[in-house]
């Protein structure tokens, strides 16, 4: 089995127009342990220094960190640094999967021996309202008796074909209905959309938040902060378990995807979410760098930003 070792930097910096007197934040920035993924080292540096800080596992088993800053500040910086090993799947044979209707009916059966874990991801969630229109869209690929895995691959391809990447087309609260009409958005939208399609058919799907390795243009060095955090979809396939699909890139995530957390949708695993007292207008800057370990050694000396942030 081949493994790739990554060094990931995820930096979030808020600047406020007025001093913030109190800030409470929740972080989902620690990569999950999975059978294919090991976290070797992880730390989160917060400036200014939090008055309180604590971490725990959330309902979905993700590590969530709570912190609060009670000294007045006009800037808040959070730098997460992670070293992660990811195992390559490679050209494994396509999993056998039952017809999608069978999966649906099994999960909706009322009575003994329910499959509780996938049922968690079957219903509406804050950002994903199942809709008849989404079911119609999905039915273009979810033909009668088609194996679930096949159909999900086809749906992913269709979304990738039909939708255009456009960071300015949507906001965090753009509903799926609008997305279906305008067919533009970012990875988070595509993931929500695909999950919405699957749940509208009565199938369980979860939202995965993480990172993606991007390749610099040939001949150029890797730029610090040029990447972004990423999101994709996981579909429950009886027998095979949860299988990942990345509609933004039309791939099945392998060793270039690093999983941080999963939940029903973005709201369960928002990298940084909080409430502040004061602050007025704010600007936020997020910089993500994903470096294969070999690369990282080369780049680290050249780039100051690879070091934890210092307060300005």
């Amino acid at each position, binding site marked *: 089995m081949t493994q790739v070792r990554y060094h990931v930097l995820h930096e*979030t910096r*808020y600047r406020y127009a007025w001093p913030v*007197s*109190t800030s*409470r*934040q*929740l972080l989902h920035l620690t990569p999950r342990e999975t059978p294919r993924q090991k976290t070797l080292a992880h730390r989160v540096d917060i400036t200014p220094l939090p008055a*309180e800080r604590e971490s725990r596992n*959330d*309902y*979905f088993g993700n590590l969530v960190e*709570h912190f*609060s800053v*009670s000294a007045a500040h006009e800037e808040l910086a959070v730098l997460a640094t992670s070293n992660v090993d990811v195992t390559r799947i490679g050209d494994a044979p396509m999993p056998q999967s039952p017809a999608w209707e069978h999966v649906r009916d099994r999960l*909706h059966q*009322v*009575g*003994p*021996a*329910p499959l*509780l874990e996938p*049922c*968690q991801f*079957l*219903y*509406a969630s804050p950002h994903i309202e*199942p809709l*008849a229109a989404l079911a119609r869209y999905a039915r273009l690929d979810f033909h009668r008796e088609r194996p679930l895995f096949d159909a999900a691959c086809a749906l992913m391809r269709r979304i990738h074909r039909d939708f255009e990447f456009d960071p300015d087309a949507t*906001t*965090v609260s753009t509903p799926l209905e609008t997305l279906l009409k305008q067919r533009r958005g*970012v*990875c*988070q939208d595509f993931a929500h959309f695909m999950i919405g399609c699957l749940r509208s058919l009565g199938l369980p799907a979860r939202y995965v938040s993480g990172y993606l390795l991007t390749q610099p243009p040939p001949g150029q060095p890797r730029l610090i902060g040029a990447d*972004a*955090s*990423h*999101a994709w979809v996981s579909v429950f396939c009886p027998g095979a378990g949860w299988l990942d699909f990345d509609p933004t890139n039309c791939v099945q995530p392998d060793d270039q995807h690093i999983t941080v957390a999963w939940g029903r949708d973005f*709201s*369960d695993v*928002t*990298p*940084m*979410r*909080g*409430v*502040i*007292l*004061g*602050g007025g207008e*704010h600007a*936020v800057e*997020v910089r993500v760098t994903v470096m294969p370990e070999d690369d990282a050694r080369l780049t680290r000396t050249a780039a100051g930003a690879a070091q934890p942030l210092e307060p300005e």
Partner: protein
Amino acid sequence: MPRQLLEHYPQTGPRYDELLSAPWTLRPHWRALFDTLVRARPEQMQERLASVRRQIRENGVTYNVYADPRGVERPWELDVLPLVIPPDEWARISAAIAQRARLLNLILQDVYGPQQMLAEGLLPPALVYGHAGFLRPCHGLKVPGAIHLHLYAADLARSPDGGWWVLADRTQAPSGAGYSLENRLVISRVFSEQFRDLHVEHLASFFATLRDTLAQHAPEGDGPPLTVLLTPGPYNETYFEHAYLARYLGFPLVEGSDLLVRDGKVWLKHLSGLRRVHAVLRRLDDDFCDPLELRADSALGVPGLVDAARRGNVLIANALGSNLLESGALLGFLPRLCERLLGEPLAMPSLATWWCGEEAALEDAIARLDTLVIKPAFPQLRIDSVFGADLDRKSRAALIAKMRARPHHYVAQELVQLSQAPVWDTQHPRRLAARAVGLRVFACASPDGYAVMPGGLARVASERDARVIAMQRGGSSKDTWVLTHGTVNTFSLLRRSVSPAELVRAGSNLSSRVVENLFWFGRYCERCDNGARLLRATIAQHIELDDIRKHALTALCRHNGLLPAEPVEDIGAALRAAALDPAAPGSLAGGLHQLSNVAFTLRERMSLDNWRVISRLTDELNTAQPTEPGEVLERLDHCVQAMMTLSGFALDGMTRDQGWRFLSMGRRIERLQFMCGVLRHALAAAGDAPDWLLELADSTITYRSRYMTRPQWLPVLDLLVCDETNPRSVAYQALGLTDYLARLAAQFGALEPAALSDAVADLLSLRPEADLHTGSTRLDALLARLGSAAYALSEQLGLRFFSHADGVWTGTEERR
């Protein structure tokens, strides 16, 4: 039996009748009360009805009806006749409700813990994972004493065969217990002898149990135990009840902005600092309680509250996430859950309800649609309840399509055949009418399991054959009399013995928000008093057609914002509007509304007498407006009297705590500004010292008793500017403010009202012979400076003491 009362009462019908067992035959437990009604003289009943109305109005019992064109508040509707329940019947109801509360508490324990009931297939996953009320951040959270439900309510109805059924469970923050208590107070007063002779069970010990169980299970530390009642605020439909219960139970009534979480503990923000909160009895919905972990868009909650509960540092009742059980879909699964969890059959059936998430139930519901009500399975779904029989072909087909597309969102329920109870027909002197009735009963956790309140909130529909009863739709309520064979427990909810450590001294219970509202209460009272006096003088002068005075007063009205800055054509109409029209900018009527609004937010801190004075004033505003100047003057007299009364209450009825001090500062700031303006206008007008100057300053009597001459400038100015003993003088306000500020500074650290101290020093150095005359530029400049110093002080107090009370929490969320 005398038939007159029942002449128009239906003797037969499809419903169970609470009063009659057969035509013209009373049920035994009604006989005594019915006799009273028969024997009562018509005037006596009229007096009883009037007493009910009066008590409700004067106690300010209201129910906020959303989208009511008459405004946000509506008086509570209460029928004079109680619903009477005999002892043996009550024993069955009570046992069944206690069992149900126990069962529901165990279900919550399981769902927010091991989820064994789901794994065993006794509770379909959709009812938990598909319910927006299942709060994942609260899973695994250990609640004190394993009590999720401290207060539980069930809506009951009686079927034609006389059996009771549960229509719905209220598990989140049940309302109605406080209204039951208020109903009891009113009705036990109008039927006091009958109440005593019939051995009606009292309610007080139920509330004591609720209070004591909270205290017993709450964590300890950081000072004496403190339970607060958390309300969403005055615009909530049952705010009256929040304030009422808070006062009755002795809990501070707080809004989310009064609390903060620090070190994983909950604190109440006081003027003098923070006080640890150990338990929160909440009337705020689950998902609004914490914008950090629950609904991010909630401005009503307390950021960090979930975490404080998770750390075991605060008891929240009911536990967060208990909304989960407010689902019609659950009803059909309760019998098996009861067998499994309690090992006994469910004692009281639920109204037959089928969750359409089960295929057979869906098909059956569609087949029998005409005989069913289709409702949302979960309260968060935006689905209206529909009576199948009401649908035409098209809407029927549309509903079926929706049900098939998302069957787990729907439940189908049998129609309720509610029983009927007698109500006193207020349109006729001696007549009973029949109305559909439902009963909300309450249980609270106690050391020996669940205790059921012996009584409840009976609700009657506005019509006899109503299919639904809702206070939101114009229903009325009844007191519920549970009779007992034994002796009545006459326990009263007085304080248990208080230990020295629990002694409460003045001001320790004041939140910053309350202090700010008291400050504005003071300002608005004074503003209305000033406005009323000024308008009274102006309108009187207009009647007497005294030109010079008229002009000075009109100008003063403009200066105080009562009249528009530009000249008006019909000054009479403009003055009338300034007095009576709440929509006229700056009007007195508008000011009274503001006063009433701020008093509304303080209602739980105001004595009933205060509240009566204010509600009489606002009632008067809402009646037809007079047009004759004489009548307008009469209204203004009422207003001045009312303000005097309020001021008397403040002077005589409030402890001298910081709240009182802020109220007084509000008054003095307002009065100082007003007096400076009045004096400057009077000085600027040519001629003798005017009568109205003394009148506006309510100093006519003092002046006459001292000088026995007509007003002359020197003595008038001495009385109104320099005399420190005259409560209307400029010096009295300024020195009083200086004194309050010194006391504040002693407790909270230095304030620097530089403008005020300088002006006060100047004021004290005025020399009568040189400065107290119309031409004095020094006097005029000083009055101007004092006026603006008052304004600056108000701003400064706001920044220093109130601003943290209304700080805005805003959500931040990273987006990719």
